[in-house]
């Protein structure tokens, strides 16, 4: 049951092959069975079964939609009312969110069954899920490897069949890179497509929530539920959401695909390159035309990103001060002590590094050299992509320069870790939509194909991914031991 698509499950529920309660129980059992993966921070078993019961009633009365009764798991960055929302941090270990994120409300309205909250890098800062207060998540394809991050719990849970689908958030690659490392489909929508209300902010001008699923078709269904205008989010876009499922079967004949030469240069592992090249060949078979393009300023994406993301996070994380919610240190002697120790004791190393970096970059005397400079570089990068997307319909390349690395391998070298985000980060700077689609294996570990589209071209991206998944079965493979 855990390998079925959402449409298959929806049909099964309607045909009475199984109930939502049974389906939910199956997944709850699997979560317990595979808890060594450490994919979940919180399992909401009782709530899930209650919701499943309600879903069964809805199904019986015919008021259901595709997601009604489908077990889903949420990245622990989305606020869930009355349920612990930790953001992977000791700071929020005691935080029972007093309200629901807009995304959560939408899933609730759809009647989806929340199984629990998924592990992640603390405050979404990281590329390996090793920065979680709740410990590292294991990659189901290789228990010694990282699942990627920051949505590592989401990717591992979907890959291991511990949820039908999951949500993730992507600030610099946090949906696509773990999707790539765990062999699932992940989509980072255009900035503004999915509401950020109730999604705990890391870097507000870069953060975007999106689906992490077993297939493009599932992603279309989940994105359909997540996307849309939210009056509570000033950066939410007020434009119609297309029918993503309806667009899946458009032909790719004549599709022009751009391959940026900067994506295939030095630093890309040859085995990963080979997988990507093979995938491109499949697209040629589907009628696509290949063109070499250039994103000349790509090399500056990492520095620009780390200035902007750090600056924004340094302010976004100031609200964690031990006054109104979250962790408070014991017996503060004065106000400064309350701040310094509460924050010092409850934030992890990577979070501290970025807060310090951002504070420095914004401080008097350095603003122009770092923050303003980074914003100018950001414009140049965005313009590189705009220009490229006038030449071609979509851009393809690798998601990550190598397959999932080993747990502990890079944790003590933050800079090396940052450099591995080279292909994903630039997309967030520009605010474009992009996907990771399973495209094969290298060293027995999954490799994702990166598909980048123009603003609000999610429907086209899903169509392009779906057509590929119709002629390949990489997305249907299950890791050994989790079949």
């Amino acid at each position, binding site marked *: 049951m855990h390998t079925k698509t959402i449409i298959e499950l929806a049909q099964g529920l309607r045909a009475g092959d199984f109930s939502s309660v049974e389906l939910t129980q199956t997944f709850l059992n699997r979560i317990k069975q595979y808890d060594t993966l450490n994919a979940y921070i919180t399992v909401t078993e009782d709530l899930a079964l209650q919701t499943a019961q309600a879903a069964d009633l809805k199904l019986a009365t015919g008021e259901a939609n595709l997601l009604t009764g489908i077990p889903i798991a949420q990245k622990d960055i989305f606020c869930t009312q009355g349920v612990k929302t930790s953001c992977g941090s000791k700071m929020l270990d005691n*935080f029972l969110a*007093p309200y629901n994120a807009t995304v959560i409300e939408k899933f609730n309205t759809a009647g989806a069954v929340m199984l629990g909250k998924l592990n992640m890098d603390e405050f979404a800062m990281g590329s390996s899920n090793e920065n979680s207060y709740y410990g590292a998540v294991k990659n189901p394809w290789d228990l010694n490897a990282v699942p990627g991050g920051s949505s590592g719990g989401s990717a591992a849970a979907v890959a291991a069949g511990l949820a039908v689908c999951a949500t993730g958030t992507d600030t610099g690659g946090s949906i696509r890179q773990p999707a790539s490392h765990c062999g699932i489909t992940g989509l980072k929508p255009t*900035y*503004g497509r999915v509401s950020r209300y109730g999604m705990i902010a890391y870097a507000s*001008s*870069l953060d975007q929530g999106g689906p992490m699923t077993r297939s493009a078709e599932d992603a279309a269904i989940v994105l359909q539920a997540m996307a849309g205008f939210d*009056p509570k989010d*000033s*950066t939410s876009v*007020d434009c119609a959401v297309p029918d993503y499922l309806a667009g899946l079967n458009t032909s790719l004949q004549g599709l022009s695909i751009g391959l940026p030469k900067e994506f295939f240069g030095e630093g890309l592992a040859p085995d990963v390159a080979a997988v990507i090249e093979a995938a491109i060949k499949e697209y040629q078979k589907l009628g696509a035309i290949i063109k070499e393009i250039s994103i000349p*300023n790509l*090399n*500056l994406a*990492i*520095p620009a990103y*780390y*200035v902007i993301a750090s600056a924004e996070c340094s302010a976004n994380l*100031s609200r964690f*001060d*031990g*006054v*109104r*919610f*979250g962790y*408070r240190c014991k017996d503060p*002697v*004065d*106000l400064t002590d*309350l701040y*310094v120790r509460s*924050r*010092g*004791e409850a*934030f992890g*190393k990577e979070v*501290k*590094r970025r807060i*310090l*970096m951002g*504070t*420095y*970059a914004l*401080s008097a005397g350095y603003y122009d*050299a*770092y923050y*303003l*400079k*980074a*914003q*100018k*570089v*950001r*414009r*140049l990068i*965005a313009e590189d992509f705009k220009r490229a997307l006038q030449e071609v319909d979509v851009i393809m390349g690798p998601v990550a320069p190598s397959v999932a690395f080993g747990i502990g391998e890079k944790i003590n070298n*933050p*800079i090396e870790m*940052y450099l591995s985000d080279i292909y994903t980060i630039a997309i967030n700077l*520009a*605010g474009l939509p992009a996907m990771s689609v399973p495209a094969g294996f290298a060293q027995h570990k999954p490799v994702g194909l990166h598909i980048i589209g123009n603003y609000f071209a999610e429907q086209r991206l899903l169509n392009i991914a779906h057509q590929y998944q119709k002629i390949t079965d990489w997305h249907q493979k299950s890791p050994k031991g989790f079949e």
Partner: protein
Amino acid sequence: MSLTASDVKKIAHLARLGIDELDIEAYTHDLSGMLNLMVQMSDLNTDGIEPMAHPMEQGQRLRTDEVTERDQHKQFQAIAPQVDSGLYLVPKVIE
């Protein structure tokens, strides 16, 4: 480009971030490394380039002036570290 331990302490104070004395050196090293990454940008001529603060280049949407929120302070304060008579308590504020 490299930072000193005292720079790091100064920034940490500005950010009200407690850092173990033992870790200062490691943070100094890591932050210096990050700065070295960032100074790469200075090689690029960006004269006349308009800074891009946000990927959405449009105007702010405005909200109608209506009271839509009700009093929920009891629920909100149920998760607070320390409250009394509806107030959040903190160590004495000195002005």
